[in-house]
């Protein structure tokens, strides 16, 4: 399932996928895969993304 909340949060911060990827230390393709729902990140990566975007885990990843 696509993660549209992550995509909107990223867009709200005016960040590209590459910028978010660089900030959390992963490849752009990984961020793209998470947003498309093709990859389930580990909790560590989820936390890193939440910290970068200033959101909670519930806001971005809870279904």
């Amino acid at each position, binding site marked *: 399932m696509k993660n549209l909340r992550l*995509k909107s949060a990223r*867009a709200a911060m*005016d960040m*590209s*996928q590459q910028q978010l990827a660089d900030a959390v*230390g*992963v*490849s752009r*393709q*990984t961020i*793209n*895969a998470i947003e498309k729902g093709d*990859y389930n*990140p*580990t909790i*560590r*990566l989820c936390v890193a993304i939440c910290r970068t975007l200033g959101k909670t885990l519930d806001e971005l990843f809870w279904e």
Partner: protein
Amino acid sequence: MNGLLLIAVLLIAWLGLACYFWQRERGPKAAYDERQEQARGLAYKYGFLTLAVCVCLLDTVLTLFPWIGTEAGGFFCLDLGVTVFAVTAIWKDAYLRLYEKPWEVVTMWGLCGLGGLLYGVFSLRKEGLLVDGMLNLSAVLIVISGSVLLTLAVFLYRRRAAGREDEEP
């Protein structure tokens, strides 16, 4: 071992050592991320399974085509296994490290593939396809170089496809 072959072996060894120390210097920046590690694990599995199946079938193939020879057959099996690994890793965007530049890979593969292909062709023209009734190892080099160039083609195709992916800023 003739002089040219010795130089080639020394050059490859030097390149290998240079790559090793260069990557070591890069430290954590040379790592793969978690998704890539997972994808590479899958690629290793497919590559190993391909190699295992090829080795199992090698005896049958050599019985049908004894002129191939065990050495060449072994190299073909290895080549197929490595190619399957590389293509799988590339397809899943797990071949390049996080901060690895694509041009480095393209240059290396291009040089290796073309160099091997040229050397193989010249060697085949000089010695012929069969040597003492067995396949000339230069034919193996041509096949391996062809695999390298095929892998490069897949890499370039994926890079192009990734560039066309719908990505909003």
